């Protein structure tokens, strides 16, 4: 080892050193790191307020090294609305899972998006309630077994509904500025996700920005971490397609370039 070697990948400043409580291989840790890296890249740690949800990431206030607010279940976008209406100069993100955001918090996320609140929402979708022990989530795939859909999610005979696609749903609204879904299921995906998160944070002052991560829950899926990534790659991506669904700024830039040309 040489003191002159350059560290090309280091621990982000905006992530606290507290080890997480997440199960081995849970990709919440990757999502947290990407958020912290975006805050670092924009140099806004000292004016950022994060809002964490109820669910597995309920303790996220310990893991980010910036001011943090713990919200009640599903209400993080409402709390963020309060934060930004009081202090528009702050940077504010919410960090939410699928039960929190797409079930109990559906009203709050839709309306925050519709009002175009200048916040960044990070949505970790692993198709299950992790913290409470693996119950069916609004994003659980059809046929997927969970502790409350023991024979597989059955939208027809058991009336259990279909997986909700949040980015597509939000994309029907006029308000949002940036809507994207990105996978955390391979290193290459994570490199792309890093750019997506940074883009979302950099556009926050323009309005509502939303990044959905397709992640895993090895413990409640009953799979080893690597196997869980492969399963999600195979099964979740076809239901939750990856992409930037909306980037108002890029669209505007493109439009004005076309006009000039």
């Amino acid at each position, binding site marked *: *080892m*040489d003191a*002159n*070697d*350059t*560290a*090309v*990948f*280091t*621990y*982000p400043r905006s*992530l606290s050193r507290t*080890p*997480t409580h*997440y*199960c*081995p*291989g*849970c*990709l*919440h*840790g*990757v999502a947290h*790191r990407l958020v912290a890296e975006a805050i670092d890249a924009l140099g806004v740690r000292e004016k950022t307020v994060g809002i964490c949800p109820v669910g597995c990431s309920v303790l996220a206030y310990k893991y980010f090294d910036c001011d943090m607010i713990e919200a009640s279940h599903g209400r993080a976008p409402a709390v963020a609305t309060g934060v930004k209406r009081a202090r528009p100069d702050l940077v504010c993100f919410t960090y939410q899972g699928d039960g929190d955001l797409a079930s109990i918090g559906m009203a709050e996320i839709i309306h925050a998006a519709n009002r175009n609140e200048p916040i960044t929402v990070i949505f970790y979708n692993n198709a299950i309630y992790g913290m409470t022990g693996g119950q069916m989530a609004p994003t659980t795939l059809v046929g997927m077994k969970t502790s409350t859909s023991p024979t597989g999610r059955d939208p027809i005979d058991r009336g259990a509904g279909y997986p909700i696609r949040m980015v597509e749903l939000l994309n029907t609204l006029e308000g949002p500025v940036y809507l994207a879904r990105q996978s955390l299921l*391979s*290193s290459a995906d*994570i*490199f792309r996700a*890093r750019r997506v998160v940074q883009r979302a944070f950099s556009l926050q002052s323009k309005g509502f920005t939303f990044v959905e991560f397709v992640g895993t829950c*090895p413990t409640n899926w009953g799979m*080893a*971490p*690597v196997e869980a*990534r492969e399963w999600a790659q195979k099964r979740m991506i076809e239901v939750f397609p990856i992409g930037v669904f909306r980037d108002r700024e890029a669209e505007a830039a493109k439009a004005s370039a076309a006009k000039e040309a």
Partner: protein
Amino acid sequence: MANHIEIDRDRCKGCGLCVASCPRQIIELGRDINAKGYHFAVQVDPSRCIACQMCAVSCPDVAITVYRGRK
């Protein structure tokens, strides 16, 4: 000197995602266990490391620092 990674053995939870992510296949879960009881990851042949960061970005516990050696 050379490209290499440092793994914070006490942060590692032995999930194996870095092992699967390494294009050179030079990371393994070791036989030793850390304070939490996990078989932590180790880099077995640093001389083949290309400092690509694939392992580090895949690590949910931010246990890996990647160094690029001076040529």
